[in-house]
């Protein structure tokens, strides 16, 4: 329990603080335009839109936080506290409505518009004001009650709600996938014309909750069963799983349709880049903010060597150019790394950022226009053809990206476990010690830049054929930040983490088009929050989990904190 919550005044203060904080968060979401942007996305048709889900999430969060902070108190106290905090969130939100209706905030805050106020008051004018407060109070109470529930009950409920939420959120995509035959039947069962029907949501809830119960019941026995099998049988089982995965990938683009395939290709490209940057940042600890340069180099190499346009250097087939592009990016990586070998830590990040920008500005300039096409870029890049099959669109390119990603992930995994990989990790942990132990830090770091760059080069090569053209504007610093964000979210140094990160940070925003304007807002918030709550990422490596969690807990012990501070001074 927090000391502040011990006294009666402390109790009130923590409620007010929590409510005000989450209320400010809700107001921020409203004013930044997110609430209005997602107000048309219905989760359950006619019942709940994403905008309200977001707003009520604030009340829910406030309630949960109060309840967590008051762990050890009576249940009714926690629920009342949570409800109060939720009510405060409602008051804060409605304050915005009341103020906004009398003062024109729009001069400064472009989103403080009447439609927003309509949303915030349930479209009932001032009559909706108490309604929102009531709703937030309820959300706060529910949020406070959630930690009180026993896990066997909470888990299925959360699973059910998440299922209904996710299907509702992506209902248009799900409906696209359910077009014919049995699938069409399923569609008419769950959806109405406007979206997910209420009964559909309930069905999904029951389905997922039941699945969760079953899983809790049978997961451990199933695992024991698999472990208990003789090795040969287990190998067969593994082959069957792998076969199923491959089959799923093969039919995926045709089931999912053009749009999702397009998104998945992007996810694949970012996974490729992420694997490269992961090698630099995650394995070798070299924070590189100019990473997009290698992506650009790969794309431009393909562009210039295959284009049918006037800038062509050669007219080679894409398949012959890919190895060339990879090697060119590898060499570029080594040359990029050479001058900055002796820079460390924060300075390295800025220096690489500078390098990346130099390359982009040079490509964009009129000076190199005769060779690289300036801002118009390189056009007319033909699609690759394999034994008569043309990789026309995303549904074909997806195979290419999947194969390339799998290959690169395999290489990365083998590298990680190799002598070189161990050397990278030694350099990451402490460069001086690594050098003292006889590791040639120069070669090791150059190889990290080179191989990381080569991976990004492959990604760029596919990117070039995906667009059929290459523009310098596609290679700004935001891409580097994007890639960095995804490997951090996934877990630095973790290979499955890259995949998870790019699905979460590239796939999701593409599917939720309304979010596109807020993508970097969310990335920024995610980076800050992740660094505090889960610096090891969503799918961490074992080492990172151990280290970062020990480090985070250590300062709680006073004597330990001083020691840590001393250690920090030492490496500073």
């Amino acid at each position: 329990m927090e000391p502040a919550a011990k006294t009666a005044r402390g109790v009130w203060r923590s409620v007010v603080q929590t409510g005000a904080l989450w209320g400010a968060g809700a107001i921020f979401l409203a004013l930044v335009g997110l609430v209005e942007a997602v107000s048309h996305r219905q989760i359950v048709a006619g019942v709940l839109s994403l905008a309200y889900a977001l707003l009520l999430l604030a009340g829910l969060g406030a309630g949960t936080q109060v309840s967590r902070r008051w762990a050890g108190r009576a249940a009714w106290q926690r629920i009342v506290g949570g409800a109060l905090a939720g009510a405060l969130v409602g008051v804060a939100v409605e304050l915005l409505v009341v103020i906004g209706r009398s003062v024109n905030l729009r001069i400064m805050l472009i989103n403080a518009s009447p439609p927003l106020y309509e949303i915030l008051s349930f479209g009932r004018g001032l009559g909706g004001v108490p309604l929102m407060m009531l709703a937030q109070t309820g959300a706060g109470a529910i949020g406070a009650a959630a930690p009180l529930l026993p896990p066997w009950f909470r888990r299925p409920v959360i699973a059910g709600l998440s299922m209904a939420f996710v299907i509702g959120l992506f209902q248009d995509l799900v409906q696209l996938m359910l077009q014919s035959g049995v699938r069409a039947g399923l569609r008419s069962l769950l959806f109405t014309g406007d979206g997910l029907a209420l009964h559909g949501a309930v069905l999904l809830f029951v389905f997922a909750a039941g699945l969760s119960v079953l899983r809790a019941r049978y997961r451990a026995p199933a695992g024991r069963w698999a472990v208990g099998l003789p090795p040969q049988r287990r190998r067969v089982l593994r082959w069957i799983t792998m076969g199923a995965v491959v089959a799923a990938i093969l039919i995926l683009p045709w089931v999912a349709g053009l749009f999702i395939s397009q998104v998945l290709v992007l996810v694949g490209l970012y996974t490729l880049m992420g694997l490269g940057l992961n090698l630099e940042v995650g394995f070798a600890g070299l924070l590189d903010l100019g990473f997009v340069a290698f992506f650009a180099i790969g794309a431009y190499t393909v562009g210039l060597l295959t284009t049918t346009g006037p800038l062509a250097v050669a007219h080679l087939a894409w398949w012959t150019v890919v190895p060339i592009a990879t090697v060119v990016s590898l060499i570029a990586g080594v040359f990029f790394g050479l001058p900055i070998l002796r820079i460390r830590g924060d300075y390295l990040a800025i220096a690489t950022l500078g390098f990346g920008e130099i390359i982009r500005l040079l490509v964009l300039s009129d000076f190199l226009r005769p060779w690289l096409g300036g801002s118009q870029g390189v056009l007319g890049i033909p699609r690759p053809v394999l034994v008569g099959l043309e990789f026309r669109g995303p549904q074909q390119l997806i195979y290419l990206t999947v194969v390339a990603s799998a290959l690169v992930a395999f290489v990365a995994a083998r590298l990680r476990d190799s002598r070189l990989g161990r050397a990278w990790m030694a350099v990451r942990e402490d460069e001086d010690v690594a050098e003292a132990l006889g590791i040639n830090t120069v070669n090791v770091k150059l190889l990290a830049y080179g191989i990381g760059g080569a991976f990004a080069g492959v990604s760029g090569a596919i990117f070039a054929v995906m667009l059929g053209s290459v523009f310098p504007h596609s290679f700004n610093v935001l891409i580097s930040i994007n890639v960095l964000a995804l490997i951090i979210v996934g877990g630095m140094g973790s290979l499955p983490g890259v995949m998870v990160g790019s699905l979460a940070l590239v796939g999701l925003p593409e599917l939720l088009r309304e979010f596109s304007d807020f993508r970097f807002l969310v990335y920024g918030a995610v980076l800050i929050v992740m660094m505090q709550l889960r610096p090891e990422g969503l799918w961490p490596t074992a080492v990172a989990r151990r280290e970062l969690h020990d480090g985070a807990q250590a300062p709680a012990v006073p004597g330990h904190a001083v020691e840590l501070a001393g250690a920090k001074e030492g490496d500073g």
Partner: protein
Amino acid sequence: MAATLVAARIQRNWLQRLSVIDIFLWAFRLAVLAAVVVGTFRTLYSGRYAGEVWLDFVVFGVSQGSVYALIALGYTMVYGILRMINFAHGDIFMCGAYTAYYAAGALYRAGVFNRQPLLSLAIILAVAVTASTSVALLVERVAYRPLRRAPRLVPLISAIGASFFIEYAVRGLYGSGFQAYPEFEVFKGKWNVFGIGILRTQAVVIVATLILMGLLYLFVMRTKTGTAMRAVSEDMEVAALMGINVDRIIVITFAVGAAAAGAAGVLYALVFKQVHFFMGFYPGIKAFTAAVLGGIGNIPGAMLGGLFLGLFESVGPILVLDGLGIVAPYQLKDVIAFTMLVMVLIFRPSGILGERLAGKKA
């Protein structure tokens, strides 16, 4: 006989010590130097630009550089204390400029703007400083303070996140377009200083920067808080043992740096006459260059570095690149700044005035 052997050994040692990297770095250095010398020589030899043109560029460079210098102060002071690059500092600068735009707009509509230019400027500056400072304190509290004991990469990533969060929050709140700053009638045209015509805005920027710099320097060197700041930057633990409230000093450092950045934002907007949510990114990086150039953690160094960078960036394209026969050299203005950044980081991370601190802080 023995002497030649020793000589040979020394020579071999010297040669052995010269690694491939050294050779590469020397080649890089010489190439840049050669480009600068050849370009300068050819430009000057061709005599294509008159003296007045150069003077304009120099004045522009100085005014630009003084803005960089003001922003650089924040980097330098924070780095001096926390050994951390406040990556979001450029965006804090943007917040000041952008928020002050609304104050300027309101004053303009009220008609005060041109009737009372000095008062208006003071109000705008105050708004900018307030906005920047509050954002900076928020960022410090939310994104940096919880991570003070974390491994080094962690706060930097958090700072990158903060930077993008601020940018896109401002984009969402204020809009994504360019907003035109109103212009002061008084500051249009040129002033004649010693027979040299200087654009008035630029003169204002230079003078305002000089005043602010002087104040800041006095604050850091003469006041008790300033002394405490220097003590914390020298050794945080010893300072804490001496009874200095380190947390408070860190907050004050952020606040002072942000105030300077906010003021810089207004000055920047006076020169360029527009604001945009992404306007802080490049000036931020350039100001960081200036801070490193002058020796990070060193306040006069930041001023010097800013001026140097501004000058080079404004004169460089014409002086060097034009002479090398590069088309549209002004497009590559930022390339010059970034090349300087990379070169400083590679060759002299301790900066011009940074020798004293080199061992400990770089």
